[in-house]
């Protein structure tokens, strides 16, 4: 049996590298470029090559102007109070007040903000990780649904089309729909179904679940389509070979399907972790800030880090330290998201080469 498994794995690897060949083909077509003869070796700067370079670099120019430049400004803001008034914007060295704002609970007594945000920040970090982990559930649901759809039953096309619709719904309308479902009055839909009168969106214990349910309603749509496409690319002959070797359906799934769709799993993981940790829309729309000083719903139970950044940004006029704190939280978020993405990306690259 072990031998069979090895063979399956090796065969699957073969299919895998075959499907990736198209990806790898980019940038590797020496034959075509060779038609220019000896000139290809000694390239010279001509007006043509300048034009080509300019065209090639246009997206990078946009990236530098609108992604890198804000990054640099935010680094400055990390260490500076930012005052915005009619005269313009002023940056003043603030001796790490932005960091103290979110890490030191005693800080903030002298500023416009009533107190430091340390406890709020840690709670927010926990909530963000909790809500973000929904993405793993989403991925599993998407995988399950796509495997069922791939059995090619009658009507699976129709199901596929239906399952995709949540993806084209805006977060605003999905949040509205679920707020409507979770309406706190007795005539709310879930309260009618269960015969309860729970105020879902005001109760700290139920708040995260309202967001999780809405996410699970919407997010698997994308993964289902992606997995469906990936499953179709796994070669049928692999399954036949596995059958000949006496593999059961689970073994086929484990040793043929999973390796075959690994690139898609990696990609969806990267995208999902990004989307999960950077959640703003759904949390802010389903659980808006209540009146008073509580941000992110009762007990801050829907306060994702992105909402905290947004809150600081909104109060940039109240206190010059606000944007500094916003910058600090942004960088913490980046440090959470980036390493995971880079690690997954590197692993993926390695698999492709190996």
């Amino acid at each position, binding site marked *: 049996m072990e031998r069979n498994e090895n063979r399956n794995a090796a065969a699957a690897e073969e299919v895998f590298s075959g499907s990736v060949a198209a990806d790898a083909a980019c940038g590797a077509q020496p034959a075509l470029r060779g038609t220019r003869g000896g000139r290809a070796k000694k390239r010279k700067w001509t007006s043509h090559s*300048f034009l080509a370079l300019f065209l090639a670099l246009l997206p990078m120019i946009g990236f530098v102007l*609108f992604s890198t430049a804000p990054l640099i400004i935010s680094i400055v803001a990390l260490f500076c109070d930012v005052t915005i008034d009619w005269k313009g914007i002023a940056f003043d060295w603030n001796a790490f007040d932005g960091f103290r704002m979110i890490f030191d609970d005693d800080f903030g007594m002298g500023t416009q903000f009533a107190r430091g945000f340390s406890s709020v920040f840690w709670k927010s970090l926990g909530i963000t990780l909790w809500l973000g982990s929904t993405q793993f559930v989403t991925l599993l649901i998407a995988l399950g649904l796509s495997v069922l759809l791939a059995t090619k039953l009658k009507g699976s096309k129709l199901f596929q089309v239906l399952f995709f619709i949540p993806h084209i719904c805006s977060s605003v309308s999905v949040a509205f729909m679920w707020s409507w479902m979770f309406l706190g009055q007795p005539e709310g839909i879930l309260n009618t179904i269960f015969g309860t009168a729970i105020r879902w969106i005001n109760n700290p214990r139920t708040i995260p679940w309202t967001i999780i349910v809405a996410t699970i309603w919407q997010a698997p749509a994308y993964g289902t389509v*992606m997995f469906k496409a990936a499953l179709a690319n796994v070669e049928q002959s692999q399954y036949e070979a596995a059958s000949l070797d006496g593999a059961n359906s689970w073994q086929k799934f484990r040793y043929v399907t999973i390796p075959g769709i690994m690139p898609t799993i990696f990609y969806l993981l990267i995208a999902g972790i990004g989307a999960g940790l950077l959640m703003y829309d759904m949390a802010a729309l389903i659980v808006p800030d209540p009146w008073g000083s509580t941000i992110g719903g009762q007990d801050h139970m829907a306060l994702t880090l992105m909402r905290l950044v947004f809150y600081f940004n909104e109060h940039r006029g109240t206190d010059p330290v606000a944007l500094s704190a916003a910058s600090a939280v942004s960088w913490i978020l980046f440090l959470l998201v980036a390493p995971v993405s880079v690690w997954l990306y590197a692993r993926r690259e390695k698999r492709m080469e190996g």
Partner: protein
Amino acid sequence: MQAKTIPAKRAVRRKKFRVSRVIIYAVLGIWTLFLFLPVYTLLVSSITPAEEASASTFTWFPAHPTFQPYADIFLHDNNLGKIGMPTLVYGFINTLWITLLPVVVGLIVSGLSAYAYSKLDFPGRKVIFKIAFAISMIPLGAFSVISFLYYDLLGWTESALPLIIPGLFGSMNTVFFLKMYYETVPNEILEAAKIDGKGTIGVFFSILLPLAVPAFIAQFIFGFVGGYNSYMGPLLYLPQDDASTWTLQLALSKIVDIFPNDANIRCASMVLGLLPLVVLFCFCQKLFIEGIAVGGVKG
């Protein structure tokens, strides 16, 4: 004896197969129900007259369904007097130009860039592409709010400029995707066009752009759906007190201010907001699914 057992075995197999089929259908059915339930309640609420809605339980089937709420969207808008047009109509128009302008221009710019990377010669071409692509892979989403400070420095806040200008430069993702597409186009076609007297850029518009129409449509749908549905950008940058500048999603997120008293009109507004993309999707599902699936595939 043998002749008897074989059909029996077959029957058992078929039955087993059916059982698994029933389970699959049941799972798919439950998921469909879960997806359908909120949509159904939204639709029902949007045609329930206000008198019937105020019961102590949810009204599953209104006794006298009415389409008046859909008309009221355009007649009883709180902002109507101020901005002269229903907020949602204004929002739809704003969404169209704020989305279409960067998506279309950005696509052409990305196409030109992909053309340069795949078909034109300049020193360091491969290295530059590798660096550019690697840099664009860095997930910078965490900075989307703090970028406000930068646009404030530029004096672009309280306008749609931060939503439009960055998109005009295209994106490396699109470049990567189109580059793969262009590498399958034989060089001879381009040489022939050059002999016909087309310039470097002329070759792109006369040959490569038309050749890659399906790829462009896929990327267009990807960009348009994202733009139409985006919420945080408009919330950050558009003036919150001037309803005539709002995009559709921003207007929908403030729907309680627009129709404070009527839940059914609010539900009807949501249905109308969903309609354009859903209708488009129904007409060209294949393009949509391809566009979204392909648009997301990186590296």
